[in-house]
């Protein structure tokens, strides 16, 4: 068994693309080796990457495929040999199999006697196979953005390929990728190692050889080095901690080959700026980690992850350089903050007329007016339901929600929309209710994000989003299967999440009604919202798909109610009684459908003598229905479902003994009417026929 190494060296790959490509390369090589029967049992495939390279090491690779044997069967013996002599048929078969006629054997099987031969196929050398197959696999890697660089554009890849290493044990595999012939020389850290090639003697020595050249090829190892270095650097400041930021860790992991950390500082006066602004500058623009004191508040320090190691003098230079840049950005941010405050949010409303929301719909001024109407309608509903809210604050928040789009700070840091508005509102004395609502207007930003904490914030979020959705649908800009450029799905998901997790007592229908959408539009939007509720219940809450279908079939308007029903149904379905009831309801539904197709009418049991079992079902259902209805009203779904399950013996007996489609038209009608009543009487919580039973 041999070891195999493939390393593709390139110009720096965008950090965001590396992890996916590394994994895909590993998969492709693994599949290739498996497909070609080159991976022994207990073989191991490991992937590595740095910004300048993707690599795979496969241990336990066969140097050659095992020889195989193939049984070939030809014409029947009678046709192949006449009087012991081979016929042209035999000769043709022998030729096709690549053997001499003398090698042909008699093969006897169920159909008779045939000519056959066992052909030995020698296994191909791994090196030969790899050389033939690898270029295709590598060039098929998915990249979000490709480029071409060679004359005539023979291939596209993420960046120009600069070197290739392909070793099978100590031997170079003669593969060529993008015009670069494989060798055994890799490259080390540009600065710390320099230009001298890093000659590799074997795949096993890869990690260590690169480490000596100041390249850590193992991503997990780099991640740990960075975390440890962040810890160590922060310890020099008493009581301080660095602020966890997993996405930033991933980014810097993929920006470095030899990571170290330097702790810098900035003037404490900048801490007067809101944390949101400081952290956005540090994280998004500079890729620094923020440092906080024991009290959890930002400290006047930053941590920069470097792609090099330097002595104390170098560290001072780098710390100083980074500090300069950060100071300049903070100065700008402070300038914008001060400059923006000269024009309070209230004085910016008019200027929203020149900020386009959507070219066919209008400006953000138009949107604000539209949002106000929706917010007022929602407020009325919420108040009617007994929820207390500060309506004046809500109106003010909606009026001013978009004004921060005209500020210099938001123009500079667009990701801080809403947040800056909220901060300015508070700073300008508009109060917490207004400030908090504006601040939280774009949350939840995802299904994992929290909803706004205040009623005013929740209503602003609902109004803004439903207005956008209905307006966009109105101009024919509804999302399609593949395109959703205005993020309407995300907006609708947020609406569902807010209704699910707040105490507003609003249903999807309420929100849609408040939007003032026209009738034609309403249907489409309602279907869209229902689909998002389905998504929420299944993909976010994790209910089984059949539970979701069953629950939504009985009602898809009240989100919290749907969740409660789904929860009760999930528990109830575990019982055998319940599974039986579900099966029975499915049966009822099928019979009713068949009856409808055949034109059988539903009748009543009045003038008919029902059999004992039918009568029992009728009585039991009649007795149970009001009980279940009351429990449903009380939202005691678990109890209601348990009661419905008690129908089981009666329903089973009914189907055992009763011929539903009785030849007598009146009896048949009475039976159909009965089961229809049973179905409808107990489908208020969920449509049990949707439940999949084993």
């Amino acid at each position: 068994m041999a070891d195999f190494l493939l390393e593709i060296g390139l110009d720096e790959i965008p950090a965001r693309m590396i992890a996916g490509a590394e994994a895909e390369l590993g998969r492709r090589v693994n599949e290739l080796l498996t497909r070609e029967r080159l991976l022994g049992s207990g073989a191991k495939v490991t992937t590595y990457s740095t910004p300048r390279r993707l690599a795979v090491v496969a241990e336990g690779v066969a140097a050659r495929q095992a020889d195989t044997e193939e049984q070939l069967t030809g014409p029947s013996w009678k046709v192949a040999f006449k009087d012991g002599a081979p016929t042209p048929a035999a000769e043709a078969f022998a030729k096709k199999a690549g053997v001499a006629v003398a090698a042909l054997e008699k093969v006897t099987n169920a159909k008779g006697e045939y000519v056959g031969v066992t052909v030995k196929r020698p296994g191909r050398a791994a090196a030969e196979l790899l050389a033939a197959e690898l270029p295709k696999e590598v060039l098929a890697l998915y990249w979000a953005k490709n480029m071409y660089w060679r004359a005539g554009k023979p291939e596209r890849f993420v960046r120009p390929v600069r070197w290739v290493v392909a070793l099978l044990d100590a031997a170079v595999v003669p593969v060529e990728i993008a015009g670069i012939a494989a060798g055994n020389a890799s490259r080390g850290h540009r600065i710390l190692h320099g230009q001298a090639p890093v000659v590799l003697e074997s795949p096993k020595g890869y990690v260590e050889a690169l480490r000596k050249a100041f390249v850590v090829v193992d991503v997990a190892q780099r991640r740990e080095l960075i975390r440890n270095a962040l810890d160590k650097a922060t310890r020099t400041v008493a009581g301080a901690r660095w602020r966890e930021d997993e996405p930033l860790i991933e980014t810097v992991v993929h920006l470095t080959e030899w990571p170290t950390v330097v702790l810098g500082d900035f003037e404490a006066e900048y801490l007067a700026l809101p944390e949101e602004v400081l952290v956005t500058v540090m994280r998004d623009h500079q890729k620094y980690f923020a440092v906080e004191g024991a009290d959890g508040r930002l400290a006047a320090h930053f941590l920069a992850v470097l792609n090099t190691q330097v002595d104390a003098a170098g560290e001072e230079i780098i710390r100083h350089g980074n500090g300069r840049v950060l100071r300049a950005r903070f100065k700008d941010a402070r300038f914008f903050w001060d400059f923006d405050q000269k024009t309070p949010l209230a004085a910016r409303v008019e200027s929203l007329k020149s900020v386009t929301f959507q070219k066919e719909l209008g400006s953000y001024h138009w949107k604000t007016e539209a949002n106000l109407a929706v917010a007022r309608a929602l407020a009325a509903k919420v108040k009617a339901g007994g929820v207390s809210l500060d309506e004046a604050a809500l109106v003010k928040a909606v009026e001013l929600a978009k004004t921060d789009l005209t500020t210099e700070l938001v123009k500079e840091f667009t990701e801080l929309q809403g947040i800056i508005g909220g901060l300015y509102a508070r700073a300008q004395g508009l109060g917490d209710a207004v400030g908090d609502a504006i601040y939280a207007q774009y949350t939840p930003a995802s299904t994992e994000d929290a909803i706004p904490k205040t009623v005013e914030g929740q209503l602003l979020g609902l109004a803004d989003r439903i207005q956008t959705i209905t307006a966009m649908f109105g101009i024919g800009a509804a999302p399609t299967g593949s395109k959703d450029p205005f993020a309407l799905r995300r907006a609708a998901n947020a609406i569902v999440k807010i209704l699910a997790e707040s105490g507003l007592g609003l249903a999807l229908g309420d929100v849609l009604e408040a939007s003032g959408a026209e009738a034609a539009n309403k249907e489409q939007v309602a279907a869209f919202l229902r689909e998002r509720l389905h998504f929420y219940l299944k993909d976010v809450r994790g209910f089984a798909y059949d539970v979701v279908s069953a629950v939504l079939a009985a009602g898809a308007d009240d989100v919290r109610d749907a969740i409660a029903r789904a929860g009760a149904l999930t528990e109830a379905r575990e019982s055998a009684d319940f599974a039986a009831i579900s099966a029975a309801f499915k049966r009822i539904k099928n019979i009713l459908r068949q009856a409808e197709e055949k034109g059988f009418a539903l009748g009543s049991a009045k003038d008919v003598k029902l059999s004992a079992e039918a009568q029992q079902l009728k009585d039991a259902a009649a007795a149970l229905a009001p009980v279940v209805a009351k429990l449903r009203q009380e939202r005691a779904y678990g109890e209601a479902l348990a009661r419905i399950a008690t129908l089981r013996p009666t329903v089973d007996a009914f189907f055992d003994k009763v011929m539903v489609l009785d030849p007598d038209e009146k009896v048949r009608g009475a039976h159909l009417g009965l089961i229809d009543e049973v179905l409808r009487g107990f489908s208020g919580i969920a449509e049990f026929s949707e439940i999949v039973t084993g």
Partner: protein
Amino acid sequence: MKPTPLTFQELLFRLQAFWAERGCVLQQPFDSEVGAGTMAPETFLRVLGPKPYKVGYAQPSRRPADGRYGENPNRLFRHTQFQLILKPPPENVQELYLQSLEAIGIDLSQHDLKFEEDNWEGPTVGAWGVGWQVMMDGMEITQFTYFQQCGGLDLDPICAELTYGLERLCAFMQDVDSVYDVVWARDPDTGAVVTYGDVRHTEELQYSVYNFEDADVERLWAHFNSYEAEAQGLLAKANALMADEKATAAEKLRFPLMSTYELALKCSNLFNLLDARGAISVTERVGMIGRIRTLAVGVAKVYVAQQGS
């Protein structure tokens, strides 16, 4: 002892010398208004077509919206780029770039260097590429781009564009907080310095006043429309000439493409001026960029036709 960092003009000398020594043609800055070195004909036109080319030049780049009346230490109406085009890009282009940094006195062993994804695009000239912003100790010092398209045309061969931000680099190396404090030149006898502010502060102030206050919006529109119409007329003439089977190569080459392109560049600068005056709405913006792009793409096609097959 640490060597004295280069003055602004020494920095430019050294960069030019480095690339001249590696076979680049040194050109003068383009003498009409451009927003970036990329828009000068030495880049925009030379990257088109199959002919290899290596050129470097300083390029004062005008961005009216970035003017700050000489009050902001980092932002300028007109900054100076050092623009380099290597067509086709040599295999060791990244290493050459790093050597150029060493040549201007940056000891790479004492700094943190990263290549961070940044894909440049210039919609007004129908150009885009793939590449990086080169970060030195947290500051962007160079835009490094492998062009893929220019003037709406696919490039083959591609080129590497290196655009150094000279004020930034110099302020970084001289360790001053304001660009105006950068030492532009030092008298070899007396040691007296002339700063960036001495040379440029007043014009930054005056340009900002014009760009934000005094520029007459109606006249700017009139100029834009006038230049655009003239360029369109010339392009129509060019297209007819290039399509004429009887026209010789020399006749085609005689067509004043350079002047046509300059008219398009005037339009681009006027767009920037109108923008700085706040005269272009968000919806109008897209349309205007399209108009300029149409001219640029038209010029690119004529250029390729002039170069012949």
